[in-house]
């Protein structure tokens, strides 16, 4: 039998907001908003490095995770949470919040690191990633994790739910926005294109889909598997305002994600590198879900400390 003192009971405890972390995050948001461009990017870069270190630590400790995709999506998540989204970690169910959905739910460790940075729950809880009975499942669960909008994991689910959120805003004349991050490989799921077609039909200008275009899926490149190109043309043909940017440039991410809502949905194809930030992981297909050894972990942390 487990008692309250055992590590198992600690892992199973519900997640609650971390007031001190929320205060730090609010100060950071204020600084980002007020800072000149150069300083702003410095802050966001530092935030990304912190998140990548947390992800490495989380995955190394848990012995499972998807580090390659976590690192390709990190700068997108950091820009959204630290500079763009209208959210309040103290009120995760605030009706007017912007909705953020990570459709590529297997990159949960990166999402959890960003949510913890914002104080949705204490960073110390990242140590419970994937532990027995932990709320921090291998894929995000909205019923256990404040800040998670819908349960993702099977691919091709996030965009339809995001379209539903944006449709609700349109029907009820609310001004919140909806952002969804899609993996590029998951665009092979047809449900995305059902949703893309309908979002344009409704003119969902408050919807932004960001494609983490790291060009690798689980076992091979997207081009060797089921090629997505010409990807920007596909989104344009489906009626979306389409942008293509460097998904590791906080400046480019911030600029495009801060554009005002338009009359039609917006697609941002963010060109990224799987494993970004750790030289021996970058563009390596094996790092989709490989777990770093102790030596690799130490080397990676050292690279991220430079």
């Amino acid at each position, binding site marked *: 039998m487990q008692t309250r003192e055992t590590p198992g009971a600690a892992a199973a405890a519900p997640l609650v907001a971390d007031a001190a972390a929320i205060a730090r995050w609010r100060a950071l948001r204020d600084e980002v908003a007020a800072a000149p461009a150069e300083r702003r990017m410095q802050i966001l870069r530092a935030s990304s490095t912190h998140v990548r270190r947390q992800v490495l630590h989380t995955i190394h400790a848990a012995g499972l995770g998807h580090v390659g995709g976590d690192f390709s999506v990190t700068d997108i998540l950091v820009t959204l949470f630290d500079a763009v989204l209208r959210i309040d970690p103290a009120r995760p169910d605030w009706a007017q919040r912007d*909705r953020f959905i990570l459709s590529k739910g297997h990159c949960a460790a990166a999402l959890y690191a960003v949510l913890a940075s914002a104080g949705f729950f204490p960073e110390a809880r990242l140590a419970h990633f994937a532990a027995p009975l932990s709320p921090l499942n291998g894929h995000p669960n909205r019923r256990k994790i404040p800040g998670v909008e819908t*349960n993702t994991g*099977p691919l091709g*689910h996030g965009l*339809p*739910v995001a379209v539903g*959120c944006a449709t*609700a805003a349109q029907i*009820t004349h609310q001004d919140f926005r909806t952002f969804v991050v899609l993996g590029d490989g998951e665009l092979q799921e047809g449900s995305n294109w059902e*949703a893309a077609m309908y979002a344009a039909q409704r003119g969902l200008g408050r919807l932004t889909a960001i494609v983490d275009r790291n060009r690798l899926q689980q076992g091979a490149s997207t081009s060797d598997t089921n090629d997505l190109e010409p990807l920007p043309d596909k989104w344009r043909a489906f009626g979306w305002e389409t942008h293509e940017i460097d998904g590791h440039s906080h400046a480019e991410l911030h600029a495009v994600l801060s554009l005002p809502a338009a009359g039609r949905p917006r697609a941002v194809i963010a060109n990224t590198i799987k494993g970004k930030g750790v030289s021996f992981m970058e563009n390596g297909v094996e790092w989709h879900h490989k777990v770093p050894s102790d030596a690799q972990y130490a080397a990676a942390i050292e690279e991220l400390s430079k």
Partner: protein
Amino acid sequence: MSKEDTSAGFDCRQAFAEELAILAAADARVVAVCNDSVGSSNLGGFRKAFPERLVNVGIAEQNMVGVAAGLANAGLRPFVCAASPFLTGRALEQIKADVVYSGFPVVLCGMSPGMAYGELGPTHHSIEDLAWLRATGDLTVVVPADPQETRAAMRWALAADRPSFLRIGRTKVPAVSPEGLEFVPGRAVVLRPGRDVTLVAIGTMVARALDAAARLSAQGIDARVINAASVKPLDEATLLAAARETRGIVTVEEAVVHGGLGSAIAELLAERHPARMRLLGVTSLAPTGSTAFLFEHFGLTAENIARQAAELLDTL
């Protein structure tokens, strides 16, 4: 009564449409979501009354269910109205992940279920839905038997604020529910007392079970009839009492017997109070034929229900 008659009675979709309009008029959160099924789901009137609250995603069931989850995330209360075979078959993973696992208050309305589409064939029959959905997390599964129960189940589903599936029949049925019926999940309705044998039915089969009980009565067999509209959760107390108090149980459903109502009751009784059972339902993909023909083909008739019940008692 003629051997098979599916021309008389009520199409539950009519009551469904009327009740949806009543709920929508009283609650601004109510929206209808459909897949080009404005006609087949009888939503023409709803569209006229609440044009902004009809979300027609086109022929795209996966998107339809995902969109419904998103609408619920943002505070609305979607009733997803689509032909049951496509809602449950095409979008099963969305039902599982986006609605049930995510825990959103979406009311999934499987229209024209079972073999309502008769000659259109197995692609358009929804006979697997109960088995699939019984296995899907914390989802309430309801098969109303008539217009009154359809309305009661809808009122409950909106108030319950949780994931639910309602099977909304197209095949005409007589009114069988007692006056003032309220739907309560996990509560079955005993429509007829009886001491010898119990007939447990859902949906279109409830009226046939009542008819079978009348036939059995003429043979001196006293049959209890239970409408088990709440397929999940089951009314365990009422069913265990039937197993204790009568000498056998016959289940009848317009669905595959493997995984549906009959299976659910057999699972309950096997563990808690083993009883003699006959499980009547659909046993294979259907050949070509009208709904009435297919009911005969699979033995889903009052005559066969009565025969099976009598045989079950004879074998004791």
